């Protein structure tokens, strides 16, 4: 039981990281990033590749994942300066799909749909149970650090200017703010956090395949962020936990609804996520903890 709980919390922690990163981009800066899973994938594969093919130590792989994911966001950040929000959404979606196409196609690097396996796990040598708890501590540590970092940014003039840019970009520009620089930094930091999440994910699950990085993941995170409250860091954490609770809890619903097949149950869950997104936007756009609406 503890192992299951620990596993759930580890995944929750990883999703929280994704949500915190997206919150910086969307909640604070107003950038619609529909390609978040792309950064997640880059982080996961980077660390996986470096630790399996080049035998790098895990912390180095983790760092590289962070850096590469952040770097990949740089061109997107540049692009975001010139595009209106909904166009940026389409471009970022395309970006994550291109990442996935590369993962599938460049078999010489990524082993294609077969994926990379035997990714080393930190604390893997500990007995099961203890190993999970240790990893959970790691995930909590990283999430906690990310939370602190994003929160600090949110409370600083940097965060305030990000919000000003979200509210009225022209006005911020005429006040002398280099809007481009702020947007790029927001994008890159958010992506780096997602990259860290990817590395944590890869080393936990121990294998990565392109199918783990579908746009669906991006939209899960969006659901969590909007549910919890765009712009509020505590809110998106809460939103992530609620979403995970729902998604995991509904797995057990099978026991109470025996006549529904696995496939149908899974479909119902996704329908609920989609419906939930619509309902929140319609009736409580500020989410649970949001202080403002969209």
């Amino acid at each position, binding site marked *: 039981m503890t192992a299951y709980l620990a596993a759930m919390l580890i995944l929750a922690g990883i999703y929280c990281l994704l949500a915190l990163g997206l919150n910086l981009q969307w909640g604070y800066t107003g950038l619609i990033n529909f390609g978040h899973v792309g950064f997640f994938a880059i982080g996961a594969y980077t660390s996986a590749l470096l630790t399996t093919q080049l035998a790098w130590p895990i912390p180095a792989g983790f760092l590289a994942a962070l850096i590469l994911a952040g770097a990949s966001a740089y061109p997107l950040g540049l692009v975001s300066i010139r595009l209106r929000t909904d166009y940026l959404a389409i471009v970022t979606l395309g970006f994550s799909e291109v990442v996935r196409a590369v993962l599938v196609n460049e078999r010489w690097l990524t082993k294609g749909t077969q994926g990379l396996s035997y990714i080393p796990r930190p604390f893997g040598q500990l007995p099961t149970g203890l190993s999970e708890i240790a990893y959970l501590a790691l995930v909590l540590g990283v999430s906690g650090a990310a939370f602190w*970092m994003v929160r*600090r*940014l949110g409370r*600083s*003039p*940097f*965060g*305030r*200017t990000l*919000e*000003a840019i979200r*509210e*009225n970009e*022209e*006005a*911020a*520009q*005429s*006040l*002398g*703010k*280099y809007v481009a620089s*702020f947007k790029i*930094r927001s994008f890159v*930091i958010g992506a780096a956090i997602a990259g860290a999440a990817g590395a944590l994910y890869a080393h936990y699950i121990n294998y990565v395949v392109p199918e783990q990085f579908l746009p669906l993941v991006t939209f899960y995170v969006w659901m969590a962020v909007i549910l919890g409250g765009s712009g509020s860091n505590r809110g998106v954490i809460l939103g992530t936990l609620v979403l995970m609770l729902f998604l995991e809890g509904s797995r057990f619903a099978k026991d109470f609804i025996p006549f529904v097949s696995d496939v149908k149950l899974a479909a119902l869950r996704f329908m609920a996520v989609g419906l939930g997104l619509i309902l929140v936007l319609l009736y409580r756009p500020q989410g649970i903890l949001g202080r*403002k609406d969209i």
Partner: protein
Amino acid sequence: MLLEADDIHKRFGGIKVLVGAWLKVPERRIIGIIGPNGAGKSTFLAVLSKFIEPERGRITLFGCNITPAKPYQIARREMVRTFQVPREFGRLTVLQNLLVAPKNQAGESVFSAWLRWSRVQAQERLLAEKADEVIEFLNLETVRNLPAGQLSGGQKKLLELGRALMLNPRLLLLDEPFSGVNPVLIDQIIERLFELRDRGLSLVVVEHNMYAVQTLCDEVFVMAEGRILTHGEPRAVFNDARVLEAYLGKDYGSPAQN
């Protein structure tokens, strides 16, 4: 002379919007710019604040030639422009709106936010003090912590002015600061602007509200069809036949009657 503009020409498409417009703004003066719709007033203001590039002409600010400069460089040079339509940061509070304004804040660097927090906080305290001064000056205490989007039109204009003041300007370009403002508030704002002049600022005010222009301005420039028709004290200008013609000619009615 704080600001001098000479022989400004600007076309949009095939239309000549500014034809040899000029302006001289001395220290501690309030200059008004009036004229019928389409005379080019807002465009002139945009050119002066470098949001638009003139085709021909020369602009000197505090003695320096700023003709080649860009808008954000100007904001850093103590000439600040406000806009006709207030552009507040809707979901930030009035206080936050003001705090966004100052340039080169240490806390805008990610590095400083993470590693030099005490320095950032120290600067924040100073800025907050100044912001509170501005809030008090503009009588916005009651809405200090309200989201700016909830303010009335007149309050938003005040906020716009407040943001400009946070930049410690020596010269303010105000684009229709009184339009859509409650008449009661107009006199209050005029009082405030006088006080700014006494503190050493100069103002250039584009306005349609003739009562405000008459009360507020030391000197008025009249624009029509992209040119400066005439300039002088408000009273003289309002009785000038050419000015009447410029307005009546466009079915506007005399400015003195407005």
